[in-house]
């Protein structure tokens, strides 16, 4: 079973601490591209059967008329040092998938919201939801497509109704350095957010 191709499947046994970042956004916005740009493994895809009520195998057996849907989630991995590994999970942003990614967001470093300026309205729901949650730091990364017409940051902030503290970064999801920079901006924000919380309490 363990072939040569699987040689880099495993993590070094010194790794003790997994951390995760969620990349959410609308279909086709470039989540998997970004995950793939940064990941040390080929992005992997899990598929879960969900009911409208929630994820998993809950109450599925013997209920053929139940409204079920299959949700795919792509993820990648970055070993950061000999102790810490980062998992990047790309999850769809639509309301009906919130049960899934809210569970994923628990304990996460933060959420990177990937935005396509040609379809800003696709991001409204997920941003509203994240602002309501309040306990998960998030940043907005604008993925650039060839026919994207440039928006000024202020214009974009107004259109998305963002808090002044929420970082907005430009990004090319196909480019490793650019994608890393978007993740770095998120983690910097998470660090500042934590410091602000600790100072306030």
């Amino acid at each position, binding site marked *: 079973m363990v072939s040569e191709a699987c040689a880099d499947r495993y993590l070094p046994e010194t*790794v003790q601490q997994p951390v995760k970042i969620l990349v959410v956004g609308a279909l086709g916005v470039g989540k998997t591209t970004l995950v793939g740009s940064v990941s040390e*493994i080929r992005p992997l895809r899990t598929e879960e059967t969900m009911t409208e009520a929630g994820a998993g195998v809950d109450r599925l057996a013997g209920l053929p008329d139940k409204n079920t849907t299959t949700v795919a989630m792509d993820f990648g991995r970055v070993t*950061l040092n000999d102790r810490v590994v980062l998992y990047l999970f790309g999850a769809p942003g639509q309301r009906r998938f919130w049960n899934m990614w809210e569970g994923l967001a628990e304990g996460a470093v933060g959420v990177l919201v990937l935005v396509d300026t040609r379809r800003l309205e696709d991001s409204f729901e997920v941003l509203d939801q994240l602002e309501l949650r309040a306990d998960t730091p998030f940043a907005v990364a604008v993925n650039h497509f060839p026919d994207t017409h440039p928006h000024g940051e202020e214009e974009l902030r107004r259109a998305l109704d963002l808090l002044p503290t929420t970082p907005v970064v430009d990004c090319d999801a196909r480019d490793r350095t650019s994608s890393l920079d978007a993740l770095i901006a998120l983690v910097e924000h998470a660090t500042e957010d934590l410091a602000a919380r600790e100072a306030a309490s």
Partner: protein
Amino acid sequence: MSSPGEYHDSPLRPYVITRGRSRPTRNTLRVDTLLLADPDRPLPASAGRQERALHRMCVRLLSLAEAAVHLELPVSVVTILASDLVDSGHLQARSGIPAAARPDRELLLEVLHGLRSLR
């Protein structure tokens, strides 16, 4: 029935593999929990085919999500199987940040430094 190498999922299949359960015995296992099998503790004869496959898969360190993909099983099912094997001492779990918590400053700086060093 499916032939070897083929993957046909249906809502019923996960339910059978987990012997009718939809919830794991412990709620500390997450998609990013790292799993490692104890090679000195062979599984009992009663262990199922998927439990054996999971135990074999975790001969070296791997996350729950990766194990699920390689085994072609839903994450929710592997969570239940892994939970049983952790309970019985056959799998070691290195967990991520608990649901109610967030990474502390030290860990965030470690992540930041790690990402910057990849640029």
